[in-house]
């Protein structure tokens, strides 16, 4: 990565309170375009240092042209379209193009570069399309070809459109904008990775706008804050943090395609340097990656002193990562108080707690045994578990820690289930009223996360829902277990999978235990290889820790979750303690 020279972004002409009077996303964007057509609201930065800048007028032309393409292919108000596109102006235009036609855009990931079996991706996508009842997929390049080759049946009847079919229309031919209302669903987020049952989180215009206002005011973003991000837009932090909030609040934004960041992590830091970036968002693993995998000679002359807010959310925030990052980049002008741990879920739009900006992150050292056995976070001066405060509720957000059984509110420092009440809660899960009713109760949302409070500070302990989160992407252990169970030599139904925290990489590795009757070391070795190959082929994940055990080696309980944690606890020498120690 070559150093990036200083660059200027055009100052934003958008008044700081612009969002306050907006009622729908479509009306907001239309007003922005009418008032500030020449404002270059979006800059995409590529790995070779080149950038694309898009003015609001140009963005509007692409969005209107995308709308026309969708309408001419039969998209009607209320129809859903799933977008599978890399970060870029066509994704942004297609997203709004669907909305301008009265449709509902949903964003999801393309096939992982680790999954060699693309048929499985198509099957997953088919389930998403079926769940959304989507009539269209908008994609491009090889992904579009893969989907077209798969045929309409595999895509639940959805039609594949590509961005190269969007032909620029003159203003006189722009189709009329569908007048949306605030309570209609504006976006669906399919956020649970590429495994598990598709879970479409429906968000209304009202919730999304309410969220962006409370984020702007609660965290304290200002019009002079340049946002520099690389998160994919199908991720909630990418969609809202990197793209929609800066766009609709008129904050200058630089987006880096995710693959370009992964190839050269220092690109993100150089972009912050070059554009005098003030805000950036990432899951914990990315901070760990930057702290540990960037060489000195890549960042000679780097200046991070403009960085004011580094939000960390979407996976557990680890104390060693905060320390490593602060130490690594202090010589480059980075301040420890820039790091802003936060907590949120797609169901709350995004982060609804954040550590006060400008204050160093707080770490609570608690007694390990008390936490594990009694579910009480008792401070200790000696050896213990370091839990990072993931922030205080943003304005208008209420948090409660409740007993998992009785649902009674618990006092400070008692670990229980986190419930959230907010004006920005999701409407429900698409086509899944039962699942919605299980978690949305009397205006509150049962997050399933286990946490405790100390005053206003929230401390995250673990996920009740047993998901494995690797690099901010979520995976259902059940899917891994199903793959392992199908490998000949594994005792049917006798495999469990779970996440194992890796403090070095700052994210989880995949761990699994499987029973087998095989005993010969060569056979066991072969079985290990086959299991790993299958899991990679089908899910794109590597099984970092794989333990084969004789029959009886797995704890059997009626709950998959208990079986996983009990089995895991049986082999501490392999999987370590809960906090990755």
């Amino acid at each position, binding site marked *: 990565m070559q150093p990036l020279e200083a660059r200027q972004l055009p100052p934003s002409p958008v008044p700081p309170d612009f969002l306050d009077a907006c009622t729908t996303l479509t009306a907001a964007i239309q007003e922005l375009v009418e008032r500030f057509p020449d404002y270059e609201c979006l800059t995409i930065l590529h790995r070779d240092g080149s950038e694309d800048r898009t003015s609001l007028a140009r963005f509007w032309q692409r969005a209107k042209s995308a709308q026309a393409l969708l309408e001419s292919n039969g998209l009607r108000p209320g129809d859903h379209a799933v977008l599978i596109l890399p970060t870029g102006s066509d994704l942004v235009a297609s997203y709004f193009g669907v909305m301008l036609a009265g449709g509902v855009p949903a964003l999801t990931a393309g096939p*992982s*570069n*680790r*999954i*060699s079996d693309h048929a499985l991706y198509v099957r997953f996508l088919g389930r998403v399309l079926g769940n959304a009842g989507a009539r269209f997929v908008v994609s491009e390049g*090889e992904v579009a070809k893969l989907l077209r080759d798969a045929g309409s049946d595999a895509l639940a009847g959805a039609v594949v459109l590509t961005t190269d079919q969007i032909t620029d229309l003159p203003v006189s031919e722009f189709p009329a904008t569908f007048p949306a209302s605030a309570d209609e669903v504006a976006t669906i987020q399919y956020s649970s990775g590429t495994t598990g049952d598709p879970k479409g989180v429906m968000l209304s215009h009202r919730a999304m706008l309410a969220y962006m206002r409370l984020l702007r005011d609660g965290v304290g973003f200002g019009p002079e804050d340049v946002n520099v991000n690389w998160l994919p837009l199908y991720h909630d932090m990418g969609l809202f943090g990197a793209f929609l909030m800066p766009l609709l609040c008129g904050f200058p934004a630089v987006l880096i395609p995710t*693959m370009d960041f*992964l*190839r*050269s*992590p220092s690109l993100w830091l150089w972009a912050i340097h070059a554009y005098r970036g003030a805000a950036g968002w990432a899951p914990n*693993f990315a901070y760990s*990656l930057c702290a540990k*995998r960037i060489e000195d000679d890549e960042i000679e002359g780097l200046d991070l002193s403009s960085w004011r807010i580094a939000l960390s959310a979407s996976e557990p925030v680890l104390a060693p990562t905060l320390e490593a990052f602060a130490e690594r980049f202090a010589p480059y002008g980075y301040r420890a108080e820039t790091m802003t741990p936060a907590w949120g879920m797609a169901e709350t739009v995004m982060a609804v707690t954040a550590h006060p900006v400008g204050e160093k992150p707080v770490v609570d050292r608690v007694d390990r045994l008390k936490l594990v056995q009694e579910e009480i976070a008792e401070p200790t001066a000696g050896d213990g578990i370091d839990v990072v405060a993931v922030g205080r509720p943003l304005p208008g957000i209420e948090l409660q820690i409740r007993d998992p059984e009785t649902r009674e509110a618990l006092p400070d420092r008692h670990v229980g289930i986190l419930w959230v009440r907010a004006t920005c809660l999701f409407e429900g899960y698409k086509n899944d009223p039962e699942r919605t009713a299980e978690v949305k109760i009397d205006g509150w949302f049962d997050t399933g996360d286990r946490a405790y409070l100390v005053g206003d500070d929230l401390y995250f302990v673990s996920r009740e829902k047993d998901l494995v989160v*690797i*690099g901010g992407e979520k995976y259902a252990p059940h899917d891994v277990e199903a793959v392992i169970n199908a490998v000949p030599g594994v005792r049917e139904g006798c495999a469990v999978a779970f996440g194992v925290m890796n403090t070095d*990489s700052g994210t989880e*590795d*995949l761990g699994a235990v499987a029973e087998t009757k095989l005993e010969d070391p060569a056979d066991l070795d072969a079985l290990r*290889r086959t299991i*790993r*190959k299958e*899991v*990679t*082929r089908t899910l*794109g*994940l*590597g*099984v*970092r*820790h*794989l333990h084969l055990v004789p029959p009886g080696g797995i704890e059997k309980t009626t709950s998959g979750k208990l079986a996983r944690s009990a089995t895991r606890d049986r082999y501490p020498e392999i999987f370590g303690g809960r906090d990755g120690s």
Partner: protein
Amino acid sequence: MEAETLEREVCAWLEKKLGVSGVGRDEELVSSGLVDSGNLVRLATHIERLADIEIPDRDIDADHFDTVAMIVAYVQERSA
């Protein structure tokens, strides 16, 4: 680039960046979980520089990069 030099360089990278030493030519890197997707992308970017070739995003997967032997074969094919 010589196959042996490349092999040595890849192994050195794995040791330096991931702390994994003594990786065999045919040992699975990706499917074993040794190299996660992020590290795989960085390994590919490193190889791009070493061998002075361009590796398109779509090739960075377990089909092309799962073992040191596969990496060497891939690079030789691209440089030919």
